[in-house]
């Protein structure tokens, strides 16, 4: 398995633990990551809104770079995945948009033929590797640990035939995270916030509403008995951590629930050390979770 690895911005700056953990997990599972070091930010949904032509062109550049590497794109972020997939859809459907992107790429000496697929680590682990194979590779079963899966909106939505570009799992009843959690030997819980929004897109613009979304999701996970939340998206990760800061004001109780990046959870089960997975680099300490596994930060 070989992918053109698009790390995105946050995993390189601010949440470096994600990039490190991703590499650790992929190495153990035999997934080759050929990094797209020259690929620009996907636009985070913002550039798409105010400058759709620029967004299309920049994402087309990323796709062109992957094409030259002869591999599909693997990301570690919901927003990156959706942005790139939406660009693929736009270029395929809209001749004018395609022509404009082609012209822009040509200015930098690039071209994009259109055949590059975009996936993210979550789907590769669930489909290409598969829960069964993952379970076999597990050396440290996370027995007794209760994990609340937080998918993040843009992993699943818009999804399904006639609706949108995400078609990897059932948008309203996904199973991927639960299957992976089980494969690691942990238990998954259902809770109200599982498929809801973390509020990251409006963290700057409407921080009250944003924090409300995050705090409520975390509170519901705690009430369901979770020891931690796992999420495939670093932006959700950021918001779910930051949202706990003002939780007392928002939901009337203090919250200190660790938020794991997906490869950190998988990495622990594959036998990586907490230090290898940079588990000390969290706003909300992961120490209590590690303690349940008899681990420390070392």
């Amino acid at each position, binding site marked *: 398995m070989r992918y053109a690895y698009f790390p995105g*911005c946050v995993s390189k*700056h*601010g*949440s470096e633990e994600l990039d490190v953990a991703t590499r650790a997990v992929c190495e153990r599972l035999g997934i080759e990551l050929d990094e797209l*070091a*020259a690929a*620009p*930010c996907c*636009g*985070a949904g*913002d*550039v*798409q*809104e*105010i400058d*759709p*032509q*620029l967004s299309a*062109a*920049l994402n087309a*550049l990323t796709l062109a770079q992957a094409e030259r590497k002869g591999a599909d794109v693997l990301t570690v972020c919901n927003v990156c995945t959706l942005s790139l997939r939406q660009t693929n859809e736009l270029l395929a459907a*809209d001749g004018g948009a395609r*022509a404009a992107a082609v*012209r*822009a790429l040509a*200015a*930098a000496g*690039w071209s994009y033929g259109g055949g590059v697929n975009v996936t993210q680590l979550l789907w590769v682990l669930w489909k290409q590797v598969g*829960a069964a194979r993952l379970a076999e590779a597990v050396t440290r079963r996370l027995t007794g640990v209760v994990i609340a899966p937080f998918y993040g*909106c*843009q992993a699943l*939505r*818009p*999804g*399904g035939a006639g*609706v*949108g570009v995400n078609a990897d799992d059932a*948008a*309203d*009843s996904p199973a991927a995270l639960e299957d992976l*959690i089980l*494969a690691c030997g942990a*238990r998954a*819980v*259902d809770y109200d916030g599982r498929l*809801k*929004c973390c509020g990251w*897109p*409006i963290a*700057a*613009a*409407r921080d009250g*509403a944003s924090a*409300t979304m995050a705090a409520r999701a975390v509170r519901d996970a705690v009430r369901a008995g979770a020891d931690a939340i796992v999420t495939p998206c670093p932006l959700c990760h950021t918001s779910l*951590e*930051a949202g706990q*800061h003002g939780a007392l004001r928002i939901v009337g109780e203090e919250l200190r629930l660790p938020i794991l990046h997906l490869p950190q959870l998988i990495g622990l089960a594959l036998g990586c050390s907490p230090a290898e997975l940079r588990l000390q*680099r*969290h*706003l909300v300490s992961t120490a209590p979770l590690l303690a349940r596994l008899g681990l420390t930060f070392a």
Partner: protein
Amino acid sequence: MPRRTKEQDGGAPPAAAERPAGTVAAAIEVLRFDPQVDREAHWRRYEVELPEGATVLEALMQVQDHQDGSLAFRRSCRHAICGSCGMRINGCARLACNTQVAVVAQEARRRAAQAGAAHAAQPGAGGADAAPAPIRIEPLGNMAVIKDLITDMSEFWQKLRGVQPWLQSLDEHPDPDYERLMSPAGYSVISQALLCVECGCCYSDCCSVEASADFVGPTALAKAFRYAHDSRDDQTHRRLFDLSAEHGIWECTRCYACTQRCPKHLRVRELITQLGGLAYDEGLRTDTGIRRAAAVRSSVLATGRLDQARMTLAATGPLQALSRLPGAAHAAITGKLTLRPPDPVERLEDVQAVARAVEESQTSGDQS
């Protein structure tokens, strides 16, 4: 408090000796609430048997007509054009009249099996129990419940009214013998937004409305799109100005629940995205949300990467940023927040050449 008299208990439909070919049997659970007698809502189970291809609405009507006349829900056209029968079926807002019983029964069974498997002590200890899981039906979300599946939509309607959803033109006295012209292309621009039946499904499941009750909501924004883009309307700028207010466009959290839910297949979030772009083009750039978008764009052009700290600062301005200082300080200590700028991507010159080419084609009016 008035007492109800002899209420028919939910009974099974007339038993047939054998089930006729081409029928579907299902169990449905409806969240009932009668404000006259109930302190809180409670689930009530019904068994139905219907012809193949029957919809959830047909199931509910069978219950109402032949089992339990106290069940209340809105319905009219039966074919997804009136928007009356919005309700949450298996947790997702849909129209009952174009949702097939067989499909959601299967969905309920699958979820029950998944839940059973996920909560098992051992991985792979599947063994989902064979009891058929019922289809669960409850009222739309983000609205107060009046009775059973009937919600109070007054805020929803009020928000729609608030976007002034009627044609506005300075030419108030057009010639009565001539229509205003509109090209087929002009019709095509609004043809998707026109299809909104105002059912409230998107509004029900909107994450922003849930977190901020005054958010105008996706329905009103879809309606606003329809008028902002109607070539006969000349109030686009003022409309976008109003939509850029506190509970307008920039409070949308892009959860895409609206696009996911819309029973008329409107890509609602995508319409909202276009409204945001239109606001930007109209020069309405004071909202923090749009300033953040502009900051992301600048950051990407400068380094090829998103610089979260700088972007937030640029968007919120120093005063608001100060108010977030305690959180930021904590973040800085753990190393999550850094004011060190990100390393630029390799071959940044390629990114910038592409960006320049895009800008040139925009300024030269060479739009695609």
